[in-house]
């Protein structure tokens, strides 16, 4: 339907209330550091979604980079006794 493609605020499904959506959007807002730090009340839903997408892409990229880093590091460490120490420090 063309409503899915329009830039308006209306969701495609009518049985979900706007309040519900606004609620979820504000919940998302709290999770995204970009928006949370700006402390602005006037963030539109569209902006929240946009920042969410950017944030997720950044996280994916971080996972990629950290995988590369860990792969390089695994070559240089060769003791298995790290494991207990690592878990202990991760639990703190």
């Amino acid at each position, binding site marked *: 339907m063309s409503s*899915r493609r329009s830039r308006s605020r209306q969701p495609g499904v009518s049985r979900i209330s706007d309040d519900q959506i606004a609620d979820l959007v504000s919940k*998302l807002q709290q999770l995204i550091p970009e928006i949370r730090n700006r402390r602005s009340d006037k963030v539109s839903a569209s902006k929240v979604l946009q920042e969410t997408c950017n944030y997720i892409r950044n*996280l994916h990229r971080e*996972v990629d980079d950290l*995988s*590369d880093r*860990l792969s390089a590091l695994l*070559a240089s460490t060769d003791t298995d006794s*790290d494991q207990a120490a*690592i878990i202990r420090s991760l639990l703190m």
Partner: protein
Amino acid sequence: MTSNRVFFNTSSRKARCARRFLQSLLRIRQRRPGSLSSEEVRQRSRRIKMAAYSSMACTVGSRRAWSRAIIFRLQSRAGRHGRMRRRCLGVKKKPSREMSQADRLRDLVPGGEALDFCNLLEETAHYIKCLSSQVEIMKSIADIYCRS
């Protein structure tokens, strides 16, 4: 008083995820110990990335659409012995101007294609929490390996 038994919900999930990921990591190292060619290092990096998403999803289990989607993709990939494709972990669609924000989000969140907008937002919130938690785990491990 410090006690080892104090487990909040989040740290317990995070600890389980960390443990699972660490075990995968050590298994990956044991497969081919010693120094590797740069191609092998790249291949190992892909395995580590898979282990990251796998431990993240398996810790959550089937409770969430995104975790189910990841588990399903990893299992069907394992059956085919295929090379790792980025598409499998939920990344690949060419963004076009006609796509709505919600569709872009559906591309990024595993399992998002089948969700209505409301559920998509809920899944996204949970996915973001777990993903950032996973990134923290990987950073901690990398730092510890760097130091030792």
